[in-house]
C-alpha cells in the first residue's frame, strides 16, 4: 500500500491549548502518501482536535503542520516562551537569541497567513482544499435546508466554478461513485438513512478531488451492517483515487481492519505509534495494552473470562525523576516512555 516514502503530511510538536487545557500536547507524526493512518484513544484524548487543527478549524497554539512540504499551519507560542525564558535566564547575552526567535516567529505568522491564499498546482483551487474532512455525525453535519446537490456542490461553488452543467455532471459522478443514484440529487438530507447520509458526507469531501481525507469517526454513529458498507466504500475510493486517509475512531476492531499504521493517544499525548499488525502483536505502552484488552469480541466464552487490564498513569509510571520521551524503539514503532521504561520495553520485545 504505502510503498513509497513520500511524506504527505507532517505534524511537528503540535500543541493545542484551550485556556490552559492541553487538548493536544506535543504530538508529532508523519502520514505517507497512499496510506491509512488511524488514531485511537478514548473520548477527550484529543484525536478530534488533532484532526481539526490540521485543517485549521482552530489556530494552533504551537508547532508546525506541513502538507506536501509546505507549512500550512504554524503556532507561535513556543517562540514566545523561548523568548520569555531567555529574558529571565540568559540576561545580557540573550539579545541575539531573542532576535533570532522573533524573526522565526514572524516567519511562522507570515507562513500561516500565506497558506490561506496559496493555490494548488492546477491554479484554481486553494492549496488547503486538498485536505477534506468527513464528520462524525451524519445528521448534524448536513444542512437540512439544502438539497443534496447544493450540499455536494458547495465546495465547487466556493472554489469559483460557474459552469452549472459541469457542476451538475460532477455531482452526478460523485453520487454514483459513493453508491447513490442521480435521483437523489434533488432530495433533502432528512429523506436519507444514516448510512446514505454518511455517503453524502463522503461525496462532499471527494468532489474537491482531495489528496488527504480526515475521517473523524465516520462510522461510529452507524449500525454494524451500514458501517461495513461505508468502510468498504472508503476502501474502494482509496484504491481508485489514490487517497490518503487519516482515520480517527474509537472502535479498535474497525481501525485495525482499515488502517496501515495506528497512533494511540492518551490525554493529548501520542503514547505509541506502529504499523497496525505490530501494534496488535506487540503492544508496549501500558495504555495500549489496556485499550487492547478492552476490545469486545463476538465470542461469548472469551468475553466471559476476559481479564481487562486497568491503566492508572500514577501506578504505571514514575516520571518524577526521568522525563518521558517519544522514542523509536524498533524501525517504525514509536513509544512514549522514560529511559528506564524504554529499556524494559526493549527487553520485552526481545523476549516475545
Amino acid at each position, binding site marked *: 500500500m504505502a510503498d513509497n516514502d513520500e511524506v504527505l503530511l507532517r505534524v511537528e510538536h503540535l500543541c493545542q491549548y484551550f485556556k490552559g487545557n492541553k487538548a493536544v500536547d506535543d504530538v508529532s507524526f508523519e502520514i505517507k502518501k497512499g496510506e491509512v493512518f488511524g488514531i485511537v*484513544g*478514548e*473520548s*477527550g484524548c484529543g484525536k478530534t482536535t488533532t484532526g481539526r487543527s490540521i485543517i485549521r478549524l482552530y489556530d494552533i497554539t504551537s508547532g508546525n503542520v506541513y502538507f506536501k512540504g509546505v507549512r500550512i499551519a504554524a503556532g507561535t507560542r513556543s517562540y514566545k516562551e523561548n523568548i520569555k525564558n531567555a529574558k529571565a535566564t540568559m540576561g545580557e547575552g540573550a539579545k541575539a537569541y531573542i532576535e533570532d526567535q522573533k524573526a522565526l516567529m514572524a516567519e511562522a505568522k507570515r507562513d500561516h497567513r500565506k497558506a490561506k491564499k496559496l493555490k494548488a498546482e492546477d491554479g484554481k483551487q486553494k492549496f488547503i482544499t486538498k485536505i477534506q474532512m468527513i464528520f462524525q455525525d451524519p445528521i448534524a453535519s448536513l444542512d437540512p435546508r439544502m438539497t443534496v446537490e447544493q450540499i455536494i456542490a458547495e465546495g465547487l461553488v466556493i472554489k469559483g466554478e460557474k459552469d452549472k452543467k459541469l457542476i451538475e455532471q460532477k455531482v452526478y459522478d460523485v453520487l454514483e461513485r459513493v453508491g447513490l443514484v442521480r435521483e437523489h440529487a434533488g432530495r433533502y438530507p432528512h429523506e436519507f*438513512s*444514516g*448510512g*446514505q447520509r454518511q455517503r453524502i458526507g463522503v461525496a462532499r469531501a471527494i468532489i474537491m478531488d482531495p489528496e488527504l481525507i480526515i475521517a473523524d469517526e465516520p462510522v461510529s454513529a452507524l*449500525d*454494524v*451492517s*451500514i*458501517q*461495513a*458498507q461505508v*468502510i*468498504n466504500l472508503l*476502501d474502494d475510493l482509496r484504491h481508485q483515487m489514490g487517497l490518503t486517509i487519516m482515520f480517527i475512531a*474509537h*472502535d*479498535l*476492531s*474497525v481501525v*485495525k*481492519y*482499515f488502517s496501515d499504521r495506528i497512533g494511540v493517544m492518551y490525554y493529548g499525548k501520542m503514547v505509541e505509534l506502529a504499523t497496525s499488525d505490530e501494534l*496488535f502483536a506487540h503492544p508496549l505502552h501500558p495504555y495500549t495494552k*489496556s*485499550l487492547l*484488552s*478492552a*476490545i*469486545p*469480541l*463476538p*465470542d*461469548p*466464552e*472469551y*468475553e*466471559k473470562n*476476559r481479564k*481487562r487490564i486497568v*491503566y492508572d498513569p*500514577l*501506578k504505571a509510571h*514514575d516520571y*518524577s525523576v526521568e522525563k518521558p520521551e517519544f522514542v523509536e524503539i524498533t524501525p517504525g514503532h514509536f513509544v512514549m516512555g522514560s529511559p528506564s521504561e524504554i529499556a524494559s520495553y526493549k527487553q520485552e520485545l526481545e523476549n516475545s
Partner: protein
Amino acid sequence: MEKKLSVKNLVVSFRTPGGKVQAVRNISFDLNKGETLSIVGESGSGKSVTSKAILGILAGNSIIEGGSILYDGMDLLKIGEDEFYHIRGDRIAMIFQDPLSSLNPIMRIGKQLTEAMLLKGKAHNNYCARNYNEKYAEATKAIVDSGLMSQAEAEKLSDDAKKAQLGAVKRELTYNAAHENAVEAADEIEDILFHIEKNAFTDRKYTIRELIKLSEGAKDESVVSDAAKLDEVLGKLKSVYKAEIKENKDYPGVVSALNELSALMKEALGRKTPDFYSEAGVSREPVENFRKALEKACEHSGAKYLELKKQAVAVIDENRHVFEADVLNKVDTDAAGSKLKAAISASIDPMEIHKDGLAYTFAGNLDGNLKTYFEGIIKNKKAEKEHDKQQKKYDSLVARGKTPTWEVIPSAAVDLDVIKDTILLLIDRVKEHYEELIATFDQRNYAVEAEHFVEYLQENARGMSEKVTKEIAKYRALKLMEEVGISDVRKRYYQYPFEFSGGMRQRIVIAIALAANPDILICDEPTTALDVTIQAQILELINKIKRERNLSIIFITHDLGVVANMADRIAVMYAGKIVEVGTASDVFYSPAHPYTWALLSAMPDTETNERLEAIPGTPPNMIYPPVGDAFADRNKYALKVDFKKQPPMFKISDTHSAATWLLHPDAPHVDPPKAVTDRIERMKKKREEGETNG
C-alpha cells in the same frame, strides 16, 4: 427458573402521515430472574419500541394492537398511569440511548441523581410496609384456616414473630452501615497512602475530612468496638493534618496516624458477621415457631386452592364454547365471562410469594378485550384515507398484471377475529397453566415454600426500615458517580449537564438508573456513544450489579461484541419480528438465520483481513410490509418461498430456534458464509490454546 417478565404476542403500530407503520409484529419472549436477555438488530427493527412498551412510554401516535406484558401479577399494557408510577424507575428502570435528551438541563447533576433516591426511598418504605403487613395478615388467616390454632393464638404468634424480626433487621441495618463505612475507610486510607507515596496527594482537605467521617461511622460494637482507641487515633489525625497540609511536606504525622487507623479497620473487617437476633436482644424462637406454623398453613392452603383450581378448569371447559361462536353475543359472553373471572380469582392462592401473572391479569385482560370487541375502535378518518390510497395502489398493480411484493395493512387498529383469537388464547393459556400446576402438585416442597415466605417478609422488613436521608442519598450518589468512572466527583456533583461531555453524561444516566435499585433494568444501547475502555468499565459495572442484586436485564444493542460479553440469551430482531433466539453460545457458535450470519460477517474483529461483507440495501419500509420474509430482499440465500410466505419459528434445540425456511426439512442445505465459519473456527482454536496454556 422464575419468570420475571413475559411478553406475549406483542403487536405495536404507529400512525404516521404516510400510513400505518408496523413496528413490532407479534413477538413473544420471557425474561428469567437474574439473566441478561440481549435484543440485537438494526435501527428500525423494533427493539427500542419493545422496551418502551414495557415501560409504558410509547409515543403518542402508537397503537398497541394486541398482546400482553406480564410482570408481577400485572399486565403492563393494561394498567393505568397511577400504577405505573410505582413501577417505572423504581422496579423497572431504563438506561436511555441519548444522554442529551434524558437529562434535565436546568438541574444540577447531584440533584438529578438524588431526586429519585429520595422520592423513591419514601415510596419504597411505604410499599414494603404495605406488603409486609398484608402478607402477615394473610399468613395469620391461613394458619387459622388450617386449624392449627385459634385466631387469638395465631395473632399472638405472628405479632411476636414480627417484633423479633423487626428488631433483628434494625440491628442488621445499623451493622451493615457501620461495616460499609469500615470497608470504605480502609479503601480510602490505602488510596491516600498511595497518593502520598507517589507525591500526588491533592484534594487533601476533602479526603481527610471524608475519612474522619467514615471512620466515625464505623463505630459499632461488632465492627470497630474499641471506640476510645478510634477516637484517640482520629484526634491525632485531626491535630496533625491541618498543620502538615499547610506546610506541604511529606506528611509524616498523617502517615503514622493513617497506619494506626488502617490496623484498626483491618482488625474490624477481619471479624465474623454476628448473629443479629442475639445482638438485638430478641429471641429467634417466635420466628421459628411462625415458620413451622407456616409450613402447615402452606400445605393446607395448597390443597384447598388445588381444588378451586380444578373447579376453575371445569368452569373453563364449560364456558369456552361461548367464545368460540362466529359472532360473539354480549349477553352470553358477559355471563360466561363473569363466571370465569370469579372462578379464577377464587383459585389464586394468597400464600404464593411469586404472583401468578396469568391468573392475576385474567379478569382485566378479558374485560379489556371484550370491551374492544363490542365497542370497536373509534374510526380514524385519516387512517382510512391512507388505507384507501394503499388499496388503490395495490389494485392498480394487480390490474396491470403484476404481483405486489407487499400487503395492505387494514385501516382499523383491531381486527375482530384477532380479538376473538386473543380471548381464546387467554383462556387456553390459563387452562394450560392450571393443568400443569395440578399435574405437578405432588412435587411441592412446603418446607422450602415456608422458608421463602419468611425470607420475603425479611426483605420487606429491611425495605421498610431502611430510611434514605439527604445525606445518605448524597453519599450514595457520590459513590455511584465514582463507580461509573467519573473523577473529581465532589466538584462534578454541583455541575450542570452542559458541563459534561457526551460520554460523561451517559455515565450519569447510567448512575441515575442504578440509583433506584431496580428489579429489571432495560439498557437501550447504553454504551454506543462511549469508547472501548469506558464501555468495558460500564459493562463490568452492570454485570457486577447484576450479580450482586440478582437483577434481570434486557440489553438492547447492535454491537455483537458487547452482546457476547453481556448476554445469557439473545434474541435477534428484524423488521419487527424475532428471527432467531437462543443462548449466547447457540447464536454465536452455531448461528442459523441468514440475518445473523450477515450481522456477524459485517463486523470486523482484530484478525479480519478480507473485505467485509456488508448487508446490501436497507430494512424494508414497514408501511408496506413484505408478503414473505422481510429479510428476503437483502438475503443472498433467499429461497423462492421466502418471497411468498413468512417462515414460522423452527426449533433447533430446546433453547435455540430461528425463523427461516432454510431449516425446513425440504430446504436445500446451505452453509453459513465463510467469514462466519472461519471466525468460529478461529475462536475455538484460540480457546483451546488458552486452555492448554492456562
